[in-house]
């Protein structure tokens, strides 16, 4: 009998070990797969920007986007990942209440640590780092579209590094990390990063655009604006659809898998805040927000560019509360986002800002709307795992504080660093190069060697 019990116990132990291994491999594979899915976002932004450029700048726009991605990866490895773990409580670098933050804890994130390379005892750090690196590269791509056709490449790369490997990461440390002061003190809730990715990147772009100035020919002497058309709108529309495909990877990476030592729960999915959720909820709400955004934009403009941008705007509008919305509510919130996108972009244009692809509006303005929507429609819920009264709850004030912080985290570094670059001559291309076209000026190959007539006016 004892032998049989011992044999049974051994079998149970073996099964338990296999179950643990299976769970670890599932978790590792889950986050690993978010990375190529998020690369699709960059394929989308590449197509989007190149299509939105005039044919004389197509490849220069593409090069800029590719280099942003390339420099984001190593710089996020050098210090961006460390910033996320070191900064949650502010700039003091002290640990927070959950004790997974601060300078001492963040030592594992330095590029020379044992966790930052091949390690058979660590199946998670690399895939989490990869997913976060792709979040960082997304912020750079968001900013990239706004400044096409007149920014210098190296100046742009420097700005992209500041945004992707520092500014948004500080926002994530404060508003996403369980020890983040916005989360702990204000109950800030931003599950899908409407504020800490989209608003930060959108308003960073605004800060840069003020110093960069409009493209030659965009505005007339009396201040009225000329339309500078995309050279290939179908390409841009496909790019936008690819961005939306990639969003599934982006939002998938915002979820915490169960059953691991670092998981919130043993048996259920959670948000990054440790509040329970399901992938089913995500599926409902992403698709409903997407649909609402398209319909909202269609009601206002009938313009396919804004309809597809509205799709993106619809998801961003829902992003902060994708874990809690009722699906029809997600559609209504997305509808509002889609409807206000084009008019908000027009207001910006009337202020003399030349945002070539509407990035400030879609990511900045609608990112703020997404953050505030949680305050308006989902106040009073625990913002973290824990009992009522023990943890902060979501509120309109907390969301408003978060919205202001995200605006400042984007706008201030964008404005200040671009001003410095302008002063040292690294921000804007020369006038002759801009009129001639950046492809002819500095790209060794042609996008369309046959069949397209050269530009005849500066606005072309």
């Amino acid at each position, binding site marked *: 009998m004892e032998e049989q019990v011992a044999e049974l116990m051994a079998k149970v132990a073996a099964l338990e070990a296999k179950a643990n291994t299976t769970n670890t491999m599932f978790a590792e594979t889950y986050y690993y797969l978010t990375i190529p899915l998020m690369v699709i976002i960059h394929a989308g932004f590449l197509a989007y920007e190149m299509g939105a450029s005039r044919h004389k700048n197509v490849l220069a726009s593409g090069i800029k986007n590719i280099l942003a991605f390339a420099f984001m990866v190593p710089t996020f490895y050098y210090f961006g990942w460390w910033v996320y773990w070191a900064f949650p409580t502010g700039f003091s670098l002290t640990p927070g209440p959950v004790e997974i933050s601060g300078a001492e804890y963040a030592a594992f994130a330095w*590029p020379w640590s044992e966790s930052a*390379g*091949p390690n058979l005892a660590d199946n998670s750090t690399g895939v989490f780092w990869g997913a976060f690196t792709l979040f960082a590269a997304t912020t750079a791509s968001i900013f990239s579209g706004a400044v096409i056709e007149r920014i210098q*490449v190296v100046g742009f*790369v420097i700005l992209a590094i500041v945004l992707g490997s520092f500014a948004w990461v500080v926002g994530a440390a404060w508003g996403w990390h369980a020890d983040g002061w916005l989360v702990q003190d204000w109950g800030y809730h931003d599950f899908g990063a409407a504020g800490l990715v989209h608003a930060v990147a959108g308003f960073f772009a605004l800060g840069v655009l003020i110093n960069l100035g409009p493209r030659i020919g965009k505005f007339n002497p009396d201040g009225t604006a000329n339309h500078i058309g995309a050279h290939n709108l179908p390409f841009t529309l496909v790019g936008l659809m690819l961005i939306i495909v990639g969003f599934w990877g982006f939002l998938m990476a915002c979820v915490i898998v169960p059953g691991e030592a670092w998981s919130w729960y043993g048996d259920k999915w959670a948000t990054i805040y440790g509040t329970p959720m399901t992938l089913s909820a995500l599926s409902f709400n992403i698709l409903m927000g997407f649909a609402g955004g398209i319909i909202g934009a269609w009601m206002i403009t009938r313009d396919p560019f804004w309809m597809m941008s509205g799709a993106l705007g619809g998801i961003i509008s829902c992003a902060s509360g994708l874990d809690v919305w009722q699906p029809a509510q997600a559609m209504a919130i997305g509808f509002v986002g889609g409807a206000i996108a084009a008019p908000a972009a027009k207001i910006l244009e009337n202020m003399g800002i030349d945002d070539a692809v509407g990035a400030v509006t879609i990511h900045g303005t609608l990112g703020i709307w997404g953050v505030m929507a949680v305050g308006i429609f989902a106040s009073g819920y625990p913002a973290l795992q824990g009992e009522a009264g023990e943890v902060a709850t979501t509120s309109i004030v907390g969301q408003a504080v978060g919205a202001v912080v995200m605006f400042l985290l984007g706008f201030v570094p964008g404005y200040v660093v671009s001003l410095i670059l302008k002063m040292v001559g690294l921000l804007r291309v020369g006038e002759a190069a801009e009129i001639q076209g950046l492809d002819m000026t500095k790209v060794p190959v042609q996008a369309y060697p046959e069949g397209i007539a050269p530009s005849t006016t500066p606005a072309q």
Partner: protein
Amino acid sequence: MGWPFDEASWNAASGAYYSAVGSELLWVGVSVVICIASMVVGALHENDAYRKAEN
């Protein structure tokens, strides 16, 4: 780090196993230099191109 185990067998590998030539810090330094140098060269090329366009 180099090979961290006593015997030349993967059987003993259990934790961090970076085993190629040079330390982690050395290679981080090399890659930082690559990034900075490429940006400097890129900026020089770019400004040269703009200057040619002006003339």
